[in-house]
């Protein structure tokens, strides 16, 4: 039963990270199509960058604590990537160069999104497996 709660907990964080990434992507797309100006776009993105990193770190930790080693291992490279960006102080979007960085920032976030979706599918699968296992017990 506890594992089920653990899963729910993980899911909340996973969904949170995905939605933050989605939000950032939305800001970038809006910028590309000229719906918002670079100042607003950069401000909105920069506002959620750190929450994204923290949520992801928590997710990673919670995978670890709930004993899902494989999922934790899968999300560690992501954590490492975020950490290096942060340490190089490149995690924030630069409003002055945002148009030159647009494609890179976008593809980076799209990649993250894909990564998270895979993680989501995997954990869903695992969850169902757990539930099924428990019912059989």
């Amino acid at each position: 039963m506890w594992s089920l709660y653990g899963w729910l907990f993980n899911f909340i964080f996973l969904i949170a990270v995905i939605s933050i990434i989605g939000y950032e992507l939305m800001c970038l797309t809006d910028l590309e199509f000229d719906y918002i100006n670079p100042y607003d776009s950069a401000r909105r993105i920069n506002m959620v960058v750190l929450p994204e990193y923290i949520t992801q770190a928590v997710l990673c930790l919670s995978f670890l604590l709930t004993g899902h080693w494989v999922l934790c291992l899968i999300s560690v490279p992501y954590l490492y990537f975020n950490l290096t960006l942060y340490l190089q102080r490149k995690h924030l979007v630069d409003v002055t160069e945002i148009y030159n960085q647009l494609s890179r920032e976008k593809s980076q976030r799209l990649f993250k999104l894909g990564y998270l979706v895979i993680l989501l599918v995997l954990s869903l699968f695992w969850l169902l497996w757990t539930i099924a296992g428990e019912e059989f017990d």
Partner: protein
Amino acid sequence: MGTENPGRPSFPATPFAAAPPTMTPFSNSGSVVGSEASNLRPMRPTVPPNTSPPMTAGPAGSGESPAFRPAPPTRYNDPSLPTPPSSYGPPAAGTFNRFPTPPFGSMPPGPPARAPVVGQPPFQPPPSQVSPPLSFRPQGQIPGVPMGSPPPGVNTPQIDSSFPASRPNFQPSFPPTVSGYPAAGASSQLPLPGYVKQSNAPFQAPQGPPVQSPFQAPPVGYAPSAPTPSPQFLSQQGGLAQAPPVASPYGLHSRDQIQHSSTMPPMGAMQGLIEDFSSLSIGSVPGSIDPGVDSKSLPRPLEGDVEPNSLPEGYSLNCNPRYLRLTTNAIPNSQSLVSRWHLPLGAVVCPLAQAPQGEEVSVLNFVSSGIIRCRRCRTYVNPFVTFTDSGRKWRCNICALLNDVPGDYFAHLDATGRRVDLDQRPELTKGSVEFVAPTEYMVRPPMPPLYFFLIDVSISAVRSGMIEVVAKTIKSCLDDLPGFPRTQIGFITYDSTVHFYNMKSSLTQPQMMVVSDLDDIFIPLPDDLLVNLSESRTVVEAFLDSLPTMFQDNLNMESAFGPALKAAFMVMSQLGGKLLIFQNTMPSLGVGRLKLRGDDPRAYGTDKEYSLRVPEDPFYKQMAADFTKYQIGVNVYAFSDKYSDLASIGTLAKYTGGQLYYYPSFQAANHSEKLSHELTRDLTRETAWEAVMRIRCGKGIRFTSYHGNFMLRSTDLVALPAVDCDKAYAMQLSLEETLLTNQTVYFQVALLYTASCGERRIRVHTAAAPVVSDLGEMYRQADTGAIVSMLSRLAIEKTMSSKLEDVRSNVHLRIVKALREYRNLYAVQHRLGGRLIYPESLKFLPLYGLALCKSTPLRGGYSDVPLDERCAAGFTMMALPVKKLLKLLYPSLVQLDDYLLKPSASADEFRKVMKRLPLTADSLDSRGLYVYDDGLQIVLWFGRMLSPDIAMNLLGPDAAAELSRVTLMERETEMSRRLMGLLKKLRESDPSYHQLCHLVRQGEQPREGFMVLTKLVEDQTGGTNGYVDWLIQLHRQVQQNA
């Protein structure tokens, strides 16, 4: 060395216009014989039918001159041909009439024979003499008389035999040949005129007209055969020959060309070929001492920048190139073509470029009808729109939408479809116009011109005397500030605290308020920090008078630059305007303080190197973004004698469309003139306020990246808070569709701005360029100036993310790729194996590329240029218009002593006499006096053996002193007056900067070293390539995988 073919003025544009049909086949022809033949078919019409047989039978071995060979390669099977040399044996038909081989008069000169082997008999004698490779040398060196009898055609066949071996210049296996060969090539050049005279004349007489006739067509380019070499032509031959055919009329490579010219009478085709490309034969073996290149005849932009004027007919309505220059005036029609054009594709725009008197952009006011724009793409009405439906509709030239003509703008069309009122409509006849914008183009009332000064008053600023100069200059400019009587002005000074000045007009003396809470800066007074100049004039003057004395005893060494910047932002954000920062001490207090991260020598050459050139603290970028948002343009004047991290501070200017002026180790005694001139210009030049610029272009293409000092407000909107005539912006194009179907694309630059008078205006420049499907045409229409400007911007941007060395090799690589692509178009076809070929339009590109690699932002490593200077030069070059950039890259060097000694020479006369010299130490004669002018500074170089008379006249008693301590001033001698007049003229010709004059005596190290010698870009200095080496290196790489 052979030859090369600079564009000589006499033939330039005609060929294209004259013979377009013949051109195309060349340019898109591949290099393979077989395919060629088919490609060329279309050309046939221009070739008289009777010529084709000889061509097919040409003596050539397979693969040569495919372009001219209408016959399919199968013809080679002709028994007489398989081995060209062998074919000499049979002195087959006497068919040589077509060859310029008059001596063999015995041959029936008549038209009849096109034997398979053209010109065989005449060659028989020579082969015996000349065929071994070594014998080329004598041949080349004693060209005149001995060679008289074997006319140029002679070379061909023999070479044929020996050619494969001797051609590869870089093959070490033929050292003797190779080393001798270049020499031969070179020497053949000069003797040629003589040769022509001697040989041709005699032959012509006996031979009679029949012989000559075939050559009458080609003579243009073809020296040896030209029966009537014009004097002008000869002279060209001497130094710089024309086109490939001419290029090596005589050299080893010449065979095919000669053959072409002899067998290809059609004039158009011939000329077309001539104009097709230029070439330079570089023969050298690695390790040989003599590079084999005559450095005197290499192409040099001694005329300065030449704007492209070879635009085809029909583009005369384009705006002047000083406003908009495309890197190539032929837009590729497909992605694949773009990928084969290895140079940047785009435009360099200088929207407010200074127009000479009489050519100013006319200002139009559409009060009644409103500004006519396309409904869909918002293009402004321009000369390229077409009116239809008897004048009721107009078709947008950019998106092809049919728009209604407003009633007030309606005019009938005449029989040819032109509006009857065309001559009263400048917007329909001129490429550049300015519209007065109505209120819908304003988001707020037009702002007044606003100047805000942020002045460092710390001890080093006081000591350097900067404050005094600045105060004096500002005061002297108060009358000339644009926008009277609306102009606003304000001041903040800072050291470890921030000082505000209340300049309320009712006061007599300004009130100073000091804020020392740097963490939470606030404005002590809601208004009156920024005042109307005309109302508070006396207070402002009183302030400026007292400013130098106010702080003269200031011992404060700190600088609260960041907080002061924030304060200035708060004061200005209501209105926007121009912020001038005078910065002397490294920011050390409060937000935005910078570390002495220093000019760390260890960082150079590592992957971390670039981080020294990017701003350290995001504070400055953020501030710059905020400044732009509130329409504030920032100009930074930096004076520090120590490292002050201009990489960070300069971003303020970069992202606000401003400029960075750097005066390293400023001392009022030396630099005050420069500072006050440049500050005056900054304050008084016509400025466009709160501007935005957009460039529109036709369907299928899009501007994707923008390069320069500005910030993008949306994907294609350049925000320019304060812009003036000294700023240019570059943008790169990309194709959105795989294939462009339209014939022409149009570009329209629109700059919406507030003029100083308070009027909102839109300046519109429109230009058209043809779409081509042919790479050769793209290269032909290339504009070196724009390309170099673009390349340098890209390179400087790249220094922000990679090592200098990588950036330089990147520039090099781009040039190599472009030349290689171009070579692939022509080389095989024309058998130009050992030659460097390049389009006429790009003849200066290699040199500018070299100069770019040696320019201040890219040069050397740690020790070559101080980091601050490097960054400052980078910011400057990102903003310079094309002409000034080219002058900075390849400065002018002129010898003065002759002019000064000549009596009664006036300065105007000097313009004519003024001859720019190649930038190499060889140009400097130790008996001369030279002036070096790169647009930013002037250096007078005194030769060691300069006559003491001149030195005395110019310098007076200081002549013997060390020149670093001598300042040039006008003396009581005629010569001195004339020199000063001349310098004045030089400065007037380029007023955007003040060129300080430095004096250097030959041998006075290290001053001479860094002022002159390292700037001679053609010389080999400190591990960099000289021009000749650079070309050889380019050539070698072009040949690899070619």
